[in-house]
């Protein structure tokens, strides 16, 4: 019997979904609003606007001047933050449940009444440019990752960085921000998640009194992203930089996500990913690091939560005098050998994934994060709650059937190297 959290899902009259995840261990609650809009929904030429809007949401409304919400959270002993992904934007506070209603009052206010003056827009654009420099421009491997993503998805917007391209960020303005805001920030395009020391009835009562007063939007468009044509040839993105002291190989694939896969497929990919490169007992580590002495480290990961296709990445750090081509070959040999997966490996992988689902229940913020990101990418409550059970039921055949997803001609590699000597 796998312990599973209890959650309560409902909907307000204006279409806003409400999810309550009780956890009475500490007098703390996590209050989150998730909007079904992310960087992949941006207009061409305006990359970074979803993330920029996220920043601007802290600059005050017609009812509450800039900084008042934040000052109130602080004064009440809470912490706040926000983040933007490809498929969603979320705002949250962690605070005593005594102040939950106050949080809803402020959060519902900024859903519809954002003000924005030019000075704030200008300053915050500078902040976003510094953020881009800090996260990406200072670091050759981050720049290369951006280039690799752009090649992996050359039509689909997942290939555009969430923070935006520098030249496009520089041109973003107040009107651009309001366009996204008016289009997507609506109660019927949002999900409220409250986790922690709360009672469902009271959360609904507060939600009706705050978010419930907002009118739904009539003109919500369904999500529509350009599809990416199938890849049938391997490409390598090569970067040489004087700051590179340690070469690195990455190889990325587009694979079905939890949302786009057939029944059981993404769980099978989860297991395959762990067996292939999830830890020191994995195929990649054993083969490349321990047996062949080619790499200092090797592994892989699968990010299943995406509205469209998901990303599967293999990585390896070469030892001295080993070329990245040698690593590529060793990776392909290891992938082909996956047909010999045995029951021990499968059992180990299932044990790990089931344990993770239990560990996740220990932290309210983690649960809120998991549910939010899943609900925003086409999944249901049941999908999340039953995940560990589905993983347990996956057969060896289902796992080995996914090996074909990792054929080299479906991937893009990135080679990070020092300057030629």
């Amino acid at each position, binding site marked *: 019997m796998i*312990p599973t959290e209890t959650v309560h899902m409902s909907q307000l009259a204006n279409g806003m979904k409400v999810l309550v995840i009780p*956890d009475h*261990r*500490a*007098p*703390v609650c996590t209050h989150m609003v998730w909007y079904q809009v992310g960087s992949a929904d941006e207009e061409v030429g305006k990359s970074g606007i979803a993330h920029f809007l996220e920043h601007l949401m802290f600059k005050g409304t017609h009812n509450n001047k800039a*900084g008042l919400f*934040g*000052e109130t959270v*602080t*004064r*009440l*002993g*809470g*912490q706040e933050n926000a983040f933007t992904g490809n498929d969603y934007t979320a705002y949250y506070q*962690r605070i*005593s449940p005594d102040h939950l209603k106050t949080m809803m009052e402020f959060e519902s206010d900024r859903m519809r009444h954002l003000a924005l003056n030019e000075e704030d827009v*200008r300053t*915050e654009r*500078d*902040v*976003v*440019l*510094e*953020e881009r*420099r*800090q996260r990406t*421009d*200072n*670091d050759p491997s981050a720049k290369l990752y951006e280039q690799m993503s752009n090649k992996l998805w050359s039509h689909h917007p997942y290939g555009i960085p969430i923070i935006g391209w520098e030249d496009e960020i520089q041109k973003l303005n107040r009107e651009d921000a309001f366009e996204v805001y008016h289009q997507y920030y609506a109660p019927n395009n949002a999900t409220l998640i409250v986790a*922690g020391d709360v009672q469902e009835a009271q959360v609904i009562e507060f939600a009706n009194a705050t978010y419930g007063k907002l009118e739904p939007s009539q003109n919500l468009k369904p999500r529509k992203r350009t599809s990416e044509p199938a890849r049938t040839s391997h490409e390598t993105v090569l970067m040489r930089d*004087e*700051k*590179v*002291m*340690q070469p690195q190989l990455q190889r990325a694939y587009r694979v079905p996500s939890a949302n786009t896969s057939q029944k059981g497929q993404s769980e099978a990919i989860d297991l395959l990913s762990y067996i292939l490169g999830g*830890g*020191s*007992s994995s195929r990649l580590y*054993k083969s490349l*690091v*321990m047996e062949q002495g080619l790499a*200092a480290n090797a592994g892989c990961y699968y990010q299943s939560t995406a509205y469209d296709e998901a990303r599967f990445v293999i990585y390896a*750090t070469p*030892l001295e005098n080993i070329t990245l081509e040698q690593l590529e070959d060793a990776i392909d040999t290891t992938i082909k050998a996956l047909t010999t997966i045995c029951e021990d490996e499968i*059992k*180990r992988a299932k*044990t*790990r994934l*089931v*344990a*993770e689902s*239990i*560990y996740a*229940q*220990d*932290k*309210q*913020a*983690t649960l809120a994060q998991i549910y939010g990101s899943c609900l925003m990418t086409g999944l249901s409550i049941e999908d999340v709650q039953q995940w560990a059970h589905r993983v347990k039921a996956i057969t060896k055949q289902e796992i080995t059937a996914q090996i074909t997803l990792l054929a080299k001609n479906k991937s893009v590699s990135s080679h990070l190297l020092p300057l030629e000597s």
Partner: protein
Amino acid sequence: MKTNVKILKTASNIEIWWVKETRLPLIALEWSVIGGSSTEQPQKAGVTSFMASLLDEGAGDLDATAFQEQMEDSAIELSFNTDRESFGGSLKTLTENASEAFRLMALALNAPRFDQDAIERVREQINAGLRRNITQPNAIAEEAFWSEAYKNHGLANPTRGTLATIAKLTKQDLEATFQANKSKATLKVAVVGMIEEAELIDYIEQMFGQWGKTIIKPVEAIAFQHKGTHVKPLKIPQTILQFGLKAPMRREENFMASFVMNHILGGGTFQARLMKEVREVRGLTYGIYTHLYPLSTTGLMIGGLSTKNEKALEAMNVVREEMDKLAAVKVEHDEIESAKNYLIGSYALRFDNSNSIAANLLRLMRDGFSPDYTMQRNNDIKKVSANDVQEQAKVILHKDNLLTIAVGEPEGF
């Protein structure tokens, strides 16, 4: 903040702070001893961290592969860590696998193999990380900061070592470091878990009971005293700035007042003086912070920000101005009450998951507090006055005593 800690003692007098978990069938454990990189000889810098990385690479009859497989068979998370003043580790396991988890951890803590092939493999992993750090601005800043601030003292040792020091470490060095650090004398253990009291006591005794009691050679106390600005050139569009000043240690009487002062200056909210002036008003940075870093041999305040090279001088000038202002002008009632309310109210946020509770309890143990301190801590903050804050600002925030490291191509430096 009430935490329901029960203090347990094992047969050989090892103290455990235990919070019984009743909802989920898991156990989170944190432990540490006094040791770490400040106790190393400079030419062997990184040996403790190297040693820690090898403890799960084979123990008893199990080589690295067998050990790792047995851990993964039960989804056990076992890790070891090293800091400037401590060596320790963590364990996370489902209750149903407790006996297996404690068995493996006991092996790692008492009979690590230090096999030569594991040593060479881990050495290459450490080297790969050190190579990356050569041109990684935050790593460069940290290394320069500590070597300037604590020249010729153990605190200047880079915790991960350098390519030069790691290259020379032998199996003997690693074994000797293990022996030197594994002492019950300074051992502290914190556990949050669904487990029976008697069982837990037995497991802890099984893991640590055979350890000796010799105390590692103590590192002498040292005050943070070096100042000045040091530039480390790196071809990047930003300058990464790290700065520091002398500050109180944890058990000094004025610590809480300096804690509140630090929060007002550069704590983690948008209301902090530096965040307001450098980010909100001027748009110069994505993040700017200061925090107190009290160790047992020294106390300091560390701050940092990153901004484009053309604005580095302007940003540091604003930092200095804000330090002067905080020392010169008493903080008004609303601002200090808000700061204190934040520090008091947000304390509970640390205690909402097992790993965090265990880590916080361990820190309290290390600092020499008793479990009921979690009830007392907020009163200590309440007592801090605007006068106290200003006094700490005057004592600590001497802009001419700032040690500043700038990594990048800062204009005007």
